[in-house]
Every structure is written in C-alpha cells, then in structure tokens.
C-alpha cells in the first residue's frame, strides 16, 4: 500500500463517488459532464496503479482509456444533441480541474520514470487524455448544432 495506490484510492473514492452520484441524479446536462469526467479521472487512477504495482504494462490500459473515453462522450454528445440543447451542460470548472489533475499526475509520473521510452508513452497518454477531455466537453457544449439526422 505505497503512496501511489493510496493516492489512487483517495481519487477513486472522492472522484469516483462524485461522478457516480453526478451521473445518476440531476439534469441530463450534468449527467453527461459527469460521464466525461469519470473517464478523465479513471485514466490517471490507472496510471497511478501502474506505477504503484510496478507493472509498466498497465499503462496500455490507461492509453486505451485515454483514447476511447472521449469517444464514448462524443457518442453521447452526438446522439443526445437535441436533448442537450434544452439545458446546455456547464461545469466548466470541474472539467478544467480534472484536466489539470490528469496533467499533474502524468508530469509527476514522467519525473519518476525518467527520460526514455516509458516517459514518451506517458506523455502521449497524457496528451490524449487532456485533449480528449477538453474536446469532449467542447462537443457537449454544442459541438453538434445542426445534426438532426446525422
């Protein structure tokens, strides 16, 4: 139970609990943002676990989640476009906070990993994670304006 897994536990308890509560209750706009935040939080947790368990092969899971998490949110943004026009999702602060948190976790892990292929892999995962999070929240806020049948 080293420091990494302890941090992962804390993030999972707080962040995970908040996102599950956010996605299960409240208006549709907030639920969709909670879904986006859940993947953007789970990716750093997986990175922390990969470091905590000392298994670099777990970074592949975080990489796939960084790639497919935002795709899932894009699916909801596109197919719920008509319903989301009623109440555009806000929660900008939460999205940026999670994006900053993800970036710091990646930077810390890069510092620990030291220069090399592992560090570049972490940077790629971090870049995909933050870009995906922001683009997905941008899509939620009205990226698919004209898609009646699209």
């Amino acid at each position, binding site marked *: 139970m080293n420091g990494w897994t302890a941090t992962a536990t804390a993030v999972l308890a707080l962040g995970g609990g908040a996102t599950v509560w956010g996605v299960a209750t409240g208006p549709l706009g907030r639920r969709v943002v909670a879904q986006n935040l859940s993947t953007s939080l789970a990716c750093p947790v997986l990175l922390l676990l990969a470091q905590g368990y000392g298994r670099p092969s777990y970074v*592949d899971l975080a*990489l796939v989640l960084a790639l497919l998490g935002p795709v899932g949110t894009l699916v909801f943004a596109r197919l719920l476009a008509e319903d989301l026009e009623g109440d555009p999702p806000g929660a900008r602060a939460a999205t940026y906070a999670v994006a900053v948190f993800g970036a710091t976790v990646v930077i810390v892990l890069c510092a620990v990993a030291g220069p090399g292929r592992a560090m570049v892999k972490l940077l790629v995962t971090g870049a*995909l994670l933050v870009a995906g999070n922001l683009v997905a929240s*941008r899509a939620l806020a*009205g990226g698919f304006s004209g*898609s009646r*049948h*699209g």
Partner: protein
Amino acid sequence: MTRRVRRWVLAVGGAGLAALLVAACPALPPFGGATHPYGDRVVHESLARQTANTIASVNFDQRAFDTLGELGILFASVIGTVVLLRQTRDERRAAPEPAAVSLPVRRYALIVLPVALLTGLYVVAHGQLSPGGGFQGGVVAATALHLLYLGADYRALENVRPIGLYEVGDALAASGYLVTGFAGLLGGTAFLANTLLPYGTFNTLASGGTVPLLNAAIGMEVACAVVVLLARFLDQAVEIEKESGS
C-alpha cells in the same frame, strides 16, 4: 397471479438463493490466498511454451477450442443481426444528411482515428506479451473507424468503409482460425495443438508457436465483426425509414 403474489414468489426464491450462497461462501479458499492450483499449472504450461502472457496462452493454446466456440458465437450473432436488421420491402433508404460538426471536434477525430487504429493493431500484435490480445485490439481498431461517424457524418464513414470487404474479412478470419487448427491435425497432432511452429525466444513477437497466428485471426475477425455489426445498427438508426417517412 397478481403483482403481489408475483413479488412474494420472487422474495421466496431470492431468499433461498441467498441462503445457498451464504452457505457456500465459507467453503471458498480465503480471498487473496497463496494457493492457486490451477494458476500454478497454467503458468508452468505457458512458460514451457515461451508465452509471456498466461491469459493468451490459456486463450489460444491450452483452451484454444473454447476460443473457437467464442469465435463462433460472435460470428453467429453478427449474422443474426445482419438478418434481423435488414431493409424490408416497406422501408426505403434515405441518404444521410451531412451534419455540421464544429472544427475542433472534427480535427480531433481525424487525428485520433489513426492513433487509435494503430493502438488497436499494437494490442492485437502484442497479445501474447502484454495485457491485450486479439479480442481487445480488434474492438479498439473497429471503434477507431467509427470516429469518422462521430467526427463528421455517416456519409463520410460510408465512403471509407466498403462493408462488403469487412464481411468477407470476417469470414476469412474465422476460417483462418479453423485452418490453423487443421494444420495441427495435418501435422500429426491434435486439432488446434500448439506443436507445429517453434516456440521462439521468450517475450518476443514470434514467441509462443501458433498463439500469435490465432491471436491475429481473432483480432481480424472481431474487428470486421464489430464493423459489420455497427454498420447494421447505423443503417437502421440513420438511413432506413418506414415508407411513411418516420
């Protein structure tokens, strides 16, 4: 059978099941204990055949016949979907309108599509070395293709994805898996036996005898099957409409 009676029957059945489960739990080995009889044998067998990822060794070497069953299940379910979601006589196919997608989303989709496709192929190729395998990589690669539908619209996706090719690819990959199995028979050992190819050196791409081949066959089969599956769902949701224009 009023609702109240039905609820009582459910409660009684549930209580019985709960009692049996609780009775069975103490007999289980302790959670996270050190004795793993199956695990030790499987790891020993997988290391004997130079396969680094034990799960891939179980999937494609020791229990390759079960994976043949899973492959058949996926193949049959996709055929079922294709038959059920076909365009019937009283339906017509309307061309999908181009959707207005904001620039950052479209640019993101066009950049992430090849990266996700490459990651999918990486997960398939390194199935027997790191966590992953044909199934996971195939789904990632297939989902990557559909970023085009999310980043632009269905017309763009249809131009890029000739559905006939994927149906043929699905069938080819499934038969590829079978042919690799029969090669074992022809080689004088059992069906799907991993005795033909050399096991190679540990933790390299060519290690594990026929495991990488079966992995690649499953990867291609799953990717093509998921593309065909999603194509039918997208056709129904976006294109096919009742004559009355619903």
